[in-house]
């Protein structure tokens, strides 16, 4: 490998590692706010602002699926970093379904509100 290519890869590792490190450090220490990550807004005619907050099951399952898929992929790449590993179709399908559930729940909460209020 040419010395300039070696130097480029070393500097690239430093920059990327530094960038990932800073973002994760800020995520862990609260420098990037993660408050209310699992809370969604729901249309609420009884509230003064027109909406209120609730803990969303759709967000919880989307978070778990995302973390699982991301860790699975990263571990496969670290295990064999010669090519992009292909993902099982089932995992991609599960991820798509999970995001669809999250978006469906969000759309229902923000556009319609609670079903009991909607059916009144």
């Amino acid at each position, binding site marked *: *490998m040419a010395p*300039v*290519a070696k*130097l*480029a*890869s070393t*500097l*690239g*590792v*430093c*920059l*990327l590692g*530094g*960038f*990932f490190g*800073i*973002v994760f450090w*800020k995520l862990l220490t609260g*420098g*990037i*706010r*993660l*408050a*209310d*990550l*699992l*809370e*969604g*807004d729901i*249309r609420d005619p009884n509230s003064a602002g*027109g*909406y209120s*907050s609730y803990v969303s099951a759709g*967000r919880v399952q*989307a*978070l778990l699926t*995302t973390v699982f*898929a*991301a860790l699975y*992929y*990263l571990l496969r*790449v*670290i295990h064999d*970093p*010669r*090519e*992009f*590993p*292909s*993902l099982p*179709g089932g995992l*991609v399908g599960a*991820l*798509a379904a999970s*995001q669809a559930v*999250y*978006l469906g729940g*969000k759309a229902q909460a*923000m*556009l319609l509100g609670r079903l009991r209020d909607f059916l009144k």
Partner: protein
Amino acid sequence: MKNIEFVISVILTVGTALVVALWVQGDATVKLKLSFEYGMLVLLFLFGFMVLAAIASGKIDISKLLTEDGGGASMSRFQLLIFTFVIALSFFLIVVCDWKFPEIPANVLALLGISATTYGVSKGIQASSGLKGKG
């Protein structure tokens, strides 16, 4: 001076290019090529380092990277960040390991597509509801 880091980066780049041009053995074409390569490498690294240092010191504020207008963190932004990081890190590891541009499987593109579409649709839902809610 307002942008002293920028001036220092350019001076270091020119200095590196000069040192390489003077010290490397070979004909003028080789010297020119190497000094340009090392100069651009140093310049790109220093620009990247300036951005990193600014983020670390808080000069570039990324505390609201995942925050929506309503105030809370956004799940759609968070998952987009996670998947972008994972694919970028994987891409870099593969390039460093094999020194060639890797083939990207269709399902990896699908993964990124699902992630980005979720963010886009989430913003659309928020806009059509008229609420400044969490994403």
